């Protein structure tokens, strides 16, 4: 029997050498922590990660470690969250993130065709469900699960903006408005 070679712990987190938390963000994080009992700082994890992602656009290894340190946790505690909750991005995404709802009611309402439409327009692979970013870094297109607006299918989000009843024409219009 051969003991063989071993491999390092895989690390999907990416580095962000210029990571620095500006005062305003630090203050925001400090305020968020006050929303929870003093000995339950860990509760603020998701809110702090949201605040960081809002600022930087994604969650880097440095951000994970900063958050852990800020909340008195181990980095693994935050790493566990970043990989569990799909809204957290582990790498930079496009300037405009198009999230098309994939789930049943939207699928019945044509969301697969809508997703394909975006992919074809932007030169992306329509068979890929996960996030794909255009070469110029302008757009990211992905399928997401139910956005809770099944009555106005198909729906999508572009960054934080929500769109319902998205026809291909409307899709083109939205794309056109992304400068």
């Amino acid at each position, binding site marked *: 029997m051969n003991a063989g070679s071993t491999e390092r712990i895989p690390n*999907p987190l990416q580095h962000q050498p210029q990571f620095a938390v500006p005062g305003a963000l630090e203050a925001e994080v400090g305020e968020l922590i006050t*929303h*929870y*009992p003093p000995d*339950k700082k*860990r*509760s*603020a*994890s*998701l*809110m702090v*990660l*949201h605040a960081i992602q809002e600022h930087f656009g994604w969650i880097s290894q440095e951000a994970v470690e900063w958050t852990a340190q800020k*909340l008195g*946790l181990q980095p693994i*505690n935050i790493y*566990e*969250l970043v*990989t*569990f*909750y*799909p*809204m*957290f*991005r*582990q790498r930079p995404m496009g300037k405009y993130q198009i999230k098309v709802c*994939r*789930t*049943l*009611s939207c*699928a*019945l*309402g044509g969301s697969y065709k809508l997703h394909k439409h975006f992919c074809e327009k932007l030169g992306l692979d329509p068979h*890929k*469900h*996960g*996030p794909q970013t255009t070469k110029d870094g302008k757009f990211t297109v*992905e*399928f*997401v*699960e*139910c*956005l*809770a*607006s*099944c*009555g*106005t*299918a198909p729906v999508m*989000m572009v960054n*934080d903006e*929500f769109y319902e009843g998205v026809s291909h024409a409307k899709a083109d219009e939205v794309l056109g408005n992304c400068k």
Partner: protein
Amino acid sequence: MPQEYRLILKHADQPGYTPGLDCYLRHGGYETLKQALTRAPKTLPDGKTLSGPEQLRDEVKLSGLRGRGGAGFSCGLKWSFVDRKSGKPIYLICNADESEPGTFKDRQIIYKDPHQLLEGMIIACYANDVHLAYIYIRGEFVEGAKILNRALNEARAKNLLGKHILGSGYGLEIHVHRGAGAYICGEETGLIESLEGKRAYPRIKPPYFPAVLGLYQCPTIVNNVETLCAIKHIAAMGGAEYAKLGTPNNTGTRIVSISGHVKRPGYYEVEVGKVTLGELIHDTAFGGGLRDGHSLKAVIPGGSSAKVFKAGEKFKLRRKGPEGREVEQEIDMLDLPYDFDTLIRAGSMSGSGAIIVLDDSTDIVEALANISEFYAHESCGQCTPCREGSLWMSKALHRLTHGEGREQDAEYLAKIADNIPGGRTICAFGEACAWPVQSFVAKFKDEFVAKGKADEERRAKENRAAKPVREIELTLNAKC
């Protein structure tokens, strides 16, 4: 003619109605809270005194209100389980993680009438001696979280929240806590874990019943958005009056979300049990019928985890006859009154009140594959049957919808699904991922078999065996 009964959504869609506090106050907002906070203690015939909060809790019990999140559990009973003697703080969490596919009712309340939710929530907190509460809102409701935060700030400014609410001496703070894209956070103990800053792994019960060992191991109430709004109306009109709405044991109103192949998809508030499933789908007041030229194929009556009904399916149910005696009746699926109990007796559930209509254009195998992919993606992965079973079923269905099916796949899927639900898993997600597979495969078996058989015949012609389809790509694979 069945009609909507708008209690909670009374104002939401009125022209000019805004989510701001002024608008809410103009429409009589927070009057109920004022009355609730100033309720005088009541002395009972036996000499016992009921405090204001105790009276409110009794009203909720009397109202017969059942949770609107999905399980339909009695709200009064849930509150009665709360350990009030532990000496620990009691927490209340509003479950605004609306995520069961097909459901979009809480969104309407949050976006259009947030103060109604806050008023209901403050009353519920007062009734349960809660001084710190959270609204756990799904991460995708970015605007919703902003609206709620605005509403909370307005309420704080008007002393509707804070240390001495309206001078009553009662203090309460509410914070918005955002999720980040995990369906399982709708499960109340998963939600609590998530709120504690952890992966949303549902807790084992026993021992972690939220009413005793909830948030921070303290007694905790988790109520759905719509449920908390109903609390406001119960406090306003009294439990007995509220119980007159709807039908016995299925009281009040509920907001039904209708989506899929109907002419008028949307949300409709109705008295529970006063409208049938068929009316909700076909009546012009509601779904408005199927698209022209199409006929009904199937209905998922309570969110995508509910067991599917097949068009024309009949149920033998015991119901009260015209003379008040119980008689067994054969009822068509469409004639089922849309309430909690009847749908359970018909083998499914009204769940979160979400009806998804599938017409004859639907490829039933594709529809199930879509649902299964959702559940495979959303399983938290904590316990074995759900973690392994949900992805296994999804992979099999992926194969079946990509030309690599087998005639035996219907049987194969049913056997996988049978090993997941029925208390085998930590939380009800086991049922949620297995029920669609069990019911679709059982009720549309011929379509599954035919698809597999066709694939086998084609492969026989191509002279090759079935090959596994490359690993299914989940929409939001966590590695992204």
